[in-house]
């Protein structure tokens, strides 16, 4: 006696004969919902080879052709639902936003360079970094096209601000511990690199430490050069603001705590504000220990 649970219903088989069955009407929505709702156990190959035949015998469908077209319609619907859920996850939104920030930065740089080149040509302003201010204070001195250009750049800067605050908001609710410890933007970047909060939570601290330094890491593995000390977590003020001698140690400590923070955020959502002060304390100790040598 074999009991098999398939997409079109539950079937009891005995000596290759169908002895009992509970099949669904050929209703795409109902069938798709059942696939989502219920658990299905695997069944043996002999039954699997007879799925079409059984479905026709039980009059779920009238032909093999219909079997394929009904199943296809159901699975297209399921696939669409799954894609929508995947994109509705908060970490998917965070990844989109942080990628957006990177795109904006790239555009701002590109356009600023073009604008400064352009102004050198007309030799009206000297330093590129003063350009936007110069435009703001005396817009009439510039050609209208250059003004448009500068306006676009400053609009992009505003957009960047707005995107950054959107990330901060999302991060505060989705990953509070990671936000406190690493900062919202760096935390978001880590999530994006890992491909989601779940993947970051499953990552070992050592990998978080060098995430974003993969070129250096593989150069190390392949050719035996020095291993990288930090990847994107270099952007953290505790790492960036410390003496190069102890940056590696700080990066290691910070990465370890980030791993814990990500796990807390993903599995429990409980706020645990001590994480940052613990890191700060260790960093403080390291800095005082390093002092005599550096002075």
């Amino acid at each position, binding site marked *: 006696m074999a009991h098999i*649970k*398939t*997409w079109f219903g539950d079937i009891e088989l005995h000596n290759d004969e169908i002895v009992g069955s509970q099949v669904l009407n050929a209703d795409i929505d109902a069938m798709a919902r059942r*696939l989502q709702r219920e658990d*299905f*156990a*695997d*069944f043996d*190959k002999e039954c*699997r*080879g007879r*799925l*079409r035949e059984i479905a026709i015998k039980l009059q779920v469908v009238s032909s093999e052709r219909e079997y*394929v*077209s009904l*199943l*296809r319609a159901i*699975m*297209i619907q*399921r*696939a*669409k639902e*799954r*894609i929508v859920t*995947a*994109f509705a996850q908060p970490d998917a939104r965070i990844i989109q936003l942080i990628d957006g920030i990177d795109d904006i930065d790239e555009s701002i740089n590109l356009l600023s360079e073009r604008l400064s080149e352009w102004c050198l040509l007309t030799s009206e302003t000297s330093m590129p970094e003063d350009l936007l201010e110069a435009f703001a204070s005396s817009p009439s001195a510039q050609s209208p096209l250059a003004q448009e250009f500068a306006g676009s750049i400053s609009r992009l800067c505003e957009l960047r601000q707005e995107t950054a605050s959107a990330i901060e908001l999302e991060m505060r609710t989705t990953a509070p511990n990671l936000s406190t410890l690493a900062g919202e933007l760096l935390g978001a970047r880590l999530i994006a690199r890992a491909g989601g909060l779940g993947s970051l939570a499953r990552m070992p601290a050592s990998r978080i430490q060098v995430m974003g330094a993969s070129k250096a890491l*593989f150069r190390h*593995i*392949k050719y035996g050069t020095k291993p990288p000390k930090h990847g994107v977590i270099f952007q953290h003020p505790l790492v960036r603001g410390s003496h190069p001698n102890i940056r590696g140690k700080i990066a290691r400590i910070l990465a370890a705590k980030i791993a814990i923070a990500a796990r807390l955020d993903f599995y429990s959502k409980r706020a645990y504000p001590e994480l940052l002060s613990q890191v700060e304390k260790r960093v403080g100790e390291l800095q005082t220990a390093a002092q005599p040598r550096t002075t």
Partner: protein
Amino acid sequence: MKITPHKVAGVFLLDRQLATKGEALYGERTFDGYRLWNPRRSKLAALLMKQAHVPLAPEQIVLYLGAASGTTVSHLADIVSLVYAVEFAPRVARDLVRLSERVENIIPLISDAAQPDYGPVVELVDLLYQDIAQPRQAEIAVKNAELFLKPRGHACIIIKARSIDVTAKPKTVYKREVKKLGELFDIESVHELEPFYKAHAAVIARLT
């Protein structure tokens, strides 16, 4: 232009370019009802270009793991009778779903091939085709073959050496993976996909 049939039924050579019959689906070039099939965009095309014996036949049902946006799947659907196309990444799966809405013999499955949850849906298949960038490629192939592949059914498994071990030589990786596959399959042949793909090989095997 000279049109000659390829060894594999359903595949054609237009002069020396690979093609299948049908309408353009992803922006590929067409010629007189034939869709050109670029061996640099599809590992199956690369394998066919290398004149390998690929176990494809018109009546086959195929389980395709790692369908991505469906470039290869769309050509495969021109050759065989039905393709169950599995893809996990939602970004590319969107293209795959769009494709399956246009092509009658593609069934899209948004699932992780490493943890197959399509058990109640997929019937017994004649061919398992796998092209996934995962370090545990061989294990995934074995698991899916045990569940879904017909006895004595064929498997065509693309090994991406760089996904398994970047530091080892590709040839070493192939050997290791082929050995793992040998526990469940009879290995029929192994083809490197140079010059179309670097550090990729295709293993053609048959369930013991």
